[in-house]
């Protein structure tokens, strides 16, 4: 009898432990503060529980569940569809007993690296609980239409089967570094400038640099990585930026630049226009370059990448910055963009130039 009691006690203990683990995991508590509502919503997004997240959206938002899911998960193969929420930071900007505004700064892990997004959310009190008024991204419905295209395109006849793999056996396109500037920022050296395709054929370009010390020793070897537009059409110019962390400019005797180019098939399509460019301060007081991107072709650009080059009054490149947009560029539909500018350099910026790089799922060669 004593043994049976022990068995029952142990079985009950098992049930209690399972219940403790399960109840703890499933709790979906109503938000009692504005900040709590926003945090709970994004916490649910983080754990991929979008239905749970939607429970914190106010009915006054007039956003259906599918639209909310698309806002959070992205659409049209945009960068947001390649993203996962990693962290959220919230701050109450203003509020009273029934309404508040909460700033949510979200950190996303994306296919191209971390991405931060700041959003001011209105939060309202409904039946004692706080809920988020979700402003959905409106997608304009374009009427059916024909977009004529007359872009340039370069094709290449591939190697023969007898050639070595990867050998092009043709002269590489001529590319030239037309400007170079080295500065020390944030404890590292940054080499930046512009590179130009001086040939009549497109080139696949990359720029590498080696920092050499006083006695000729190598201090660092880096490449422009994604701070360049790798595909350059004839006469096209791209900015480049190469970062050398933990190197002091005073240590550097010289910089060895290594531009490389390879002949490649390319087309001028898609054409992406940049509209309404302007330097201004964002909500947190930082300098940003804002504008709008317009895809002037008829196919979707999934991930646009904005590269901005800043010049001083002498026409020298003083900074290069970039930003990815987490929205796809649908044909003929403007999408806003914002690129950070260093505050200490903003006052020296005399002019700037924006180039747009892109990745489209259906156009990978």
């Amino acid at each position: 009898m004593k043994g049976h009691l022990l068995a029952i006690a142990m079985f009950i203990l098992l049930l209690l432990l399972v219940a403790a683990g399960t109840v703890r995991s499933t709790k979906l508590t109503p938000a009692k503060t504005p900040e709590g509502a926003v945090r709970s919503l994004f916490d649910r997004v983080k754990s991929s529980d979008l239905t749970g997240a939607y429970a914190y959206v106010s009915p006054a938002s007039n956003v259906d569940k599918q639209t909310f899911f698309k806002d959070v998960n992205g659409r049209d193969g945009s960068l947001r569809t390649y993203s996962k929420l990693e962290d959220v930071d919230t701050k109450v900007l203003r509020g009273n007993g029934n309404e508040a505004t909460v700033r949510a700064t979200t950190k996303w892990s994306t296919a191209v690296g971390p991405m931060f997004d700041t959003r001011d959310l209105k939060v309202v009190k409904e039946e004692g609980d706080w809920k988020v008024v979700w402003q959905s991204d409106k997608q304009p419905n374009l009427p059916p239409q024909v977009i004529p295209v007359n872009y340039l395109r370069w094709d290449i006849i591939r190697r023969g089967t007898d050639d070595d793999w990867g050998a092009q056996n043709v002269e590489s396109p001529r590319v030239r570094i037309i400007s170079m500037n080295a500065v020390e920022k944030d404890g590292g050296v940054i080499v930046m400038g512009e590179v130009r395709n001086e040939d009549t054929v497109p080139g696949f370009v990359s720029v590498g640099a080696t920092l050499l010390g006083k006695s000729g020793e190598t201090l660092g070897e880096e490449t422009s990585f994604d701070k360049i537009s790798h595909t350059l059409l004839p006469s096209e110019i791209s900015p480049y930026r190469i970062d050398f962390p933990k190197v002091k400019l005073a240590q550097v005797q010289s910089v060895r630049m290594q531009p490389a180019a390879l002949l490649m098939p390319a087309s001028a399509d898609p054409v992406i226009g940049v509209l309404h460019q302007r330097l201004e301060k964002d909500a947190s007081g930082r300098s940003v370059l804002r504008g709008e991107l317009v895809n002037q072709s008829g196919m979707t650009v999934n991930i646009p990448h904005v590269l901005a080059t800043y010049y001083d009054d002498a026409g020298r490149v003083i900074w290069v910055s970039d930003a990815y947009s987490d929205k796809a560029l649908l044909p003929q539909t403007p999408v806003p963009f914002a690129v950070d500018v260093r505050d200490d350099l903003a006052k020296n910026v005399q002019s700037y130039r924006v180039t747009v790089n892109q990745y489209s799922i259906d156009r990978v060669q």
Partner: protein
Amino acid sequence: MTSTSPVSNVPNGRVLALGAIILLALAVHGPLLLMQLPASSYDANTHMFFASNYAQHWFNPWNEKWYGGFSQTTYPPLAHQWIALFSHVLGLPLAYMFVQLLVVLLIPVGVFRYARLWVDERAASYAAIASVFLGSLALLVYQSGQLPTTFAAALTLNALPFFYSWAREARMTALLKGVAICVAAAAVHHVTMIFGMALFAWPVLWLAASDARQEDRRYGGAAIARSVMFAVIVAVGIVIVLFPLFKAPQAATGQVPIPHGSRDNYLLNLASGMNFWIIPHGALLLALPFVFLRGASSRRLRPLFFGWFLTLLIGLGGTTPVAPVLLGTIPKALIGIDFFNVLTYERFTFWATLMTLPFVGLLAAELVRRWNRVAIAGLATAAVFTCALAVAWTYYRPINVSPFKVDQVVTFLNNEGHAKFRYLTLGFGNQFAHVSREVNAGSVDGDYNSARLLPELTASGAGQLYNAKYFGVTGMEALRSMLKHANQYGLKYIFVRDRYYEPLLAFAGWRQAEVYDNGNVTLWVKDDVPPAHKIDLGVTIPEWQGVTWGTLPMLSSLLAIFLVIALPERRRMAETVEFPAAAASAVELREAN
């Protein structure tokens, strides 16, 4: 008065010979292993990869093929060395299968001997039969490819009776054999030694102390003292045999946890519950009420019951707070390490099912006594169903939902001098290890996080680059960092099976060059990358460590085999004890030479 002898409920009956049980294991698992079913499991290729290095360079544990170079002294070598040894005759995949088969044959022996501590010979033989059909074993072998885990578990089970015998009776031969087997087990798999041995040993120690006190009229504390002595000798043996492991070059970095289904709450995530609990248990679930009732009622079985209960709770992963607290919160508070999010829990369930087997043997014996052939038919059906379901589960729930071929990748890397450069595979999952063991080229990625030394990897704490996206920002930053230094490392080729990674490659200067397997895999190249050269990681493995690493672990296993053969056990006579025991006095054990 309660008997302290192994529990039995049945009158003397025929005991199936252990040889016959081993043949049964051979009949069940032999064909499956001959079909090389584990070849597509999670980890089999990783273990074959390690073995391939030993096959080519037995005394040189430095392997250039992963992480730009790493030391294999970061992982116990014994299982890999046995595979390497047999690979010269059978080839690598078949050698892996052969060693796994030997392990599968060793498990019923271990279960029989372990069960014999708790129950009579007949029930132990039923337990051994049940071990052949264990669902958790089938999943570990055919789905997870955890050869070292099963190998070390088999050795641990075989060592425990010697541990018991030494702790209770102070028999020197038991000490020798137990220590030798334990050291060999540690040379196979250190995690099993740390966690598994601890979970298995304390109930046995409890039993030994209890038996010494009640049956031998000795002081139970002596058993505890002897067990401490046993542990100390084993620890010294392990340090000697695996000395290079403790001196292995490892970067001190925290591991970002990768989500694993075994850490889920199985009730909230039924798919994980099926994979990590229901299927591994199979028909054993029907025996659980009996385990509770008998385990709690019988004084002799109570240590095993508590040991099983704790292991079961840990095996439930995130279903209860036990594993998160015991392996997460507490160690983090004490030593700053969160084991919960590093470990996976299928092995704990495996150990729990092994601990269930003595109860199952007892239940089977009782059922057979009552219903004879009907019971045998029922038990056989349940056993076959359990094993078949677990094996079939790898078919119905394959780990690769969209299988793909890597032959063309291997052919590409092994031809036209492409091995001069390093490569990455993104989205390849466990097929990365398959590729890396078949190609001559090296990779900056690898499949054993503890061994990496490249600063781009150690700085982040993310796991494999081929799974970078699953580690979030940390993983993608590690990948970005590695791609940025492609030129330094000669990283020219990237094979992509997951289009998630394409945008980064496209923006970072790689271009798509080839398409394989009907578009399943694409090759991306960076044209300005110079050929790879040896990376100076600031690490050298002394030659003498290579020699000891190549000899001592293997010698430990040979010594264990020699001692077991040279010093045979005196066999205890099978006997029957009524349960609940009605005897007025304790039954004396009789021994025969």
